[in-house]
């Protein structure tokens, strides 16, 4: 009996909040392809928050974790998409009170003349309180080539608020890996105040395919039997080309395929079925410029 009282109230998995959190993470799993490091980190944070609640019930010291994050990764790996989700997620986990997202870039933080920057930055911070402040391409804040740049002032205010209002607001920085590294190298204070440096990996071909299918399903389109292998071939070719931007390139490719499908249907000039309106065919894919470079393989 005594031992029973000694072991704590309930397993963490059975806490009422746990099922809500699990549902949330499952939903994230379903809607975002790949991104294992991101999901892993989120799972850790969620677990910590639940355990913290149990600790608080036992009268143990529990301090809310620092949640400032930095997302790095190549173009189109989902940094902005995840940040948008993060606000809602953190609200449901109870880390932020309101869970709104304020997305800003350098222009919104840094002023044009002396004395303009501080109020501008403070205005943005005020708006973001209780939610998530997302600074896209944060490295533009710091311009080493111009030592009188006002960006530095903005960074200092940010640092101060990140430190003093840790439980009021979560700051997420995002940008390309190499340039963020440069940014942190010249602003060590910023790097040390960010607890979670999450690197977004590039997507593999299978993942890109699933992303494409998710995108199409959301738009009520689908590939027919010929189009799917065609698109797979398109992916493997496109990935080797310069300026490949992961999911963003996929979205653009799908947009172009939809354009070609529309032209094809329009040119056919007969009554269309619902089925035809939804179906993308192999020829829509093969018309792509990507195949033009390797005509022998294309058909």
């Amino acid at each position, binding site marked *: 009996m005594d031992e029973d009282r000694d072991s704590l109230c309930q397993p963490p998995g059975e806490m009422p909040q746990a099922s809500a959190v699990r549902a949330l993470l499952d939903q994230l799993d379903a809607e975002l392809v790949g991104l294992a490091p991101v999901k892993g980190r989120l799972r850790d944070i969620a677990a910590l928050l639940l355990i913290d609640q149990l600790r608080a019930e036992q009268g143990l010291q529990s301090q809310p974790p620092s949640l400032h994050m930095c997302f790095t990764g190549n173009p189109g790996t989902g940094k902005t998409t995840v940040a948008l989700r993060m606000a809602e997620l953190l609200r449901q986990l109870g880390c932020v009170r309101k869970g709104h997202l304020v997305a800003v870039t350098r222009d919104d933080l840094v002023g044009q003349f002396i004395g303009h920057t501080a109020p501008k930055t403070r205005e943005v911070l*005020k708006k973001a*309180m*209780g*939610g998530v402040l997302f600074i896209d391409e944060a490295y533009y804040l710091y311009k080493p080539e111009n030592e009188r740049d006002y960006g530095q002032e903005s960074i200092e205010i940010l640092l101060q608020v990140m430190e003093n209002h840790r439980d009021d607001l979560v700051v997420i920085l995002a940008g390309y890996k190499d340039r963020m590294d440069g940014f942190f190298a010249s602003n060590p204070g910023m790097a040390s105040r960010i607890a979670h440096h999450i690197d977004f990996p590039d997507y593999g071909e299978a993942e890109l395919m699933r992303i494409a299918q998710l995108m199409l399903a959301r738009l009520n389109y689908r590939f027919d039997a010929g189009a799917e292998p065609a698109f797979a071939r398109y992916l493997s070719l496109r990935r080797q080309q310069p300026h490949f931007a992961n999911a963003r390139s996929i979205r653009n490719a799908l947009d172009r395929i939809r354009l070609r499908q529309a032209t094809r249907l329009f040119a056919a000039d007969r009554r269309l079925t619902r089925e035809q309106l939804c179906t993308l065919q192999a020829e829509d894919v093969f018309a792509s410029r990507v195949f033009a470079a390797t005509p022998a393989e294309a058909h």
Partner: protein
Amino acid sequence: MRITQGSFSFLPDLSDAQIAAQVEYALGRGWAIGIETTDDPHPRNTFWEMFGNPMFDVSDAAGVMLELRQCRKTFPDHYIRLTAFDSTHGTESVVLSFIVHRPALEPGFRLVRTEVAGRSLQYSLESYAVQRAPEGERYGMRQE
């Protein structure tokens, strides 16, 4: 003499946590918080100076408290009040206002009796603080 204007003014001064809770309530009703200051707290002086714009896009009390802290730093010897503006059609006015900061020393008001025709009296109020110094120097120890 302690000035009593707006809501809660007969209570002891609100703590920051209490102010934040009131702000949270106002934001929950969809009201926009504004910060106003004055050093002429005459009861008929309803127009105080605004400290920044009303915060229409702030959704959490922490944002308001950030601004309030800034205002206290700028005007340590002024009265500061928060106003909550309800923009609903048909209301469109301040629906809640309370003092959140006051100078350390409040000298109060003098009752001025003016004798007019027929020896009848007209009464008015005059603030000692306003009388003794121009705007911006009225409260606090600076002018001594």
